[in-house]
């Protein structure tokens, strides 16, 4: 019996200037639950100013390899447009994030949205695309107080950072921290 909750992809925005980036997924019953799980799993450390979640099932996903076979457009009513958020992966560089959010387009279907995105964002060439209906993405919110309550506690937990331990070495030239005195 399938008792899994749906999977939600999580997008984290590290600073006001950085784009939302795909960091991984969580299972959750609904969007609020997904946001809570996303915070616990992906924001145990700074930094974040906002999170988005979207049901994995609604994501229209294509890799460059898949697009070599073409991007067939469905026969749909062109007058019914909706907004799609566009995410792109453009580099094979070592990274802890996948897709970057690069913008949005209006289109009558996900495939049309992809076609528009390829035309609108040609550089750098994409290795993979995600097209997500804007109304399916739920945000942790722009409210500053809320954001502070969600994301600031991680900032004070400096002991979670390797930098808190300085240069630890047993060798004579190493500067050793004196460590806690209460042990």
């Amino acid at each position, binding site marked *: 019996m399938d*008792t*899994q909750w749906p999977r939600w992809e999580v997008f984290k925005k590290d600073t006001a200037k950085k784009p939302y980036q795909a960091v991984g997924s969580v299972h959750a019953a609904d969007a609020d639950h997904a946001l809570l799980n996303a915070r616990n799993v992906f924001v145990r450390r700074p930094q974040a100013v906002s999170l988005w979640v979207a049901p994995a099932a609604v994501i229209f996903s294509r*890799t460059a390899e898949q697009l070599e076979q073409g991007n067939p457009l469905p026969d749909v009513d062109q007058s019914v447009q909706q907004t799609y958020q566009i995410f792109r992966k453009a580099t*094979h560089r*070592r990274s802890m994030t996948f897709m970057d959010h690069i913008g949005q387009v209006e289109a009558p279907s996900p495939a049309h949205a992809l076609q528009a995105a390829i035309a609108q964002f040609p550089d750098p060439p994409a290795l993979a695309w995600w097209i997500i209906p804007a109304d399916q993405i739920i945000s942790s919110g722009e409210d500053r107080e809320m954001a502070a309550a969600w994301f600031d506690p991680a900032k004070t937990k400096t*002991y*979670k950072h390797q930098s808190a331990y300085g240069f630890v070495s*047993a060798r*004579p030239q190493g500067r050793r921290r004196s460590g806690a005195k209460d042990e």
Partner: protein
Amino acid sequence: MTKINEMTMNDEKQTAEFEARIARGEKIEAGDWMPEAYRKQLIRMISQHAHSEYIGMLPEGKWIPHAPSLRRKMILIAKVQDEAGHGQYLYHAAETLGATREEMMDAFLTGKAKYSSIFNYPSDTWADVGMIGWLVDGAAIRNQTMLAQCSYGPYSRAMVRICAEETFHHKQGKEMVLLYAHGTPKQREMVQDALNRYWWPSLMMLGPHDADSPNTPQLVRWGIKTKTNDEVRQEFIAETAPELLAAGLTIPDPELHFDEESGQWIHGPIDWDEFWQVVRGNGPCNAERLGARRQAHEDGAWVREALNGYAQKALST
């Protein structure tokens, strides 16, 4: 020509293109073509890795109530919490290959799936917490830094994120061990005892010798592993042994020495019988660890039930 032959030829062509992509340093993403064996190996490796993160909470979690200071307690809670998070990153990566969370959890709890041998050793004293951080997390980071280069995008990204966090685990352990190594006679005795028990299992956890690791050549060719077990083990010893010795500790291997000519550390024979015993379920704590994991799963049933009730409501609206 029969249809099957055509399929095989097509498969060979796709495999050649796939291997060329990997040779060019490209990352394979969910949706890209991949050989079935690549997919299966990755699901096996990633889910085992995820289970290891989960089981890894147990030996250290046991010491949270007994931490000698508030600082050490906060550090240890954060570390154990990280391991749970790392399990989540990895289950996510395996899910991109079509494995489901339920299948993986089921294989884990029924004992069908393996996890790292190291977590089947007991954590007998508080000093073990430090030694686990320095040696076990140190060895894991060596392995994970290698896996961060992995050809499969989702696994590689999970590893990059995990390595960034795991460095803290390693450093807090090393800091603690060095503090005690220069501390009171009792503290020195505790860390030496921890080293005596954890040195060999730490070497073993990096896996069998290359000669006894038949999957390695294909895993290397497909860029799943970028180094062999012996190469990673050598890196680990080269990094760790000089510092343990400089701290005045004795490594429990009389044959261990640095060979100037080859530039390699030479170690004594590893007890692979012990390793395979532990892998097959007969280590000192296998039953206890899996029992604790199952108990935690059962104890959490009411939470899942409550959330399922909520989910039914949420999903039907």
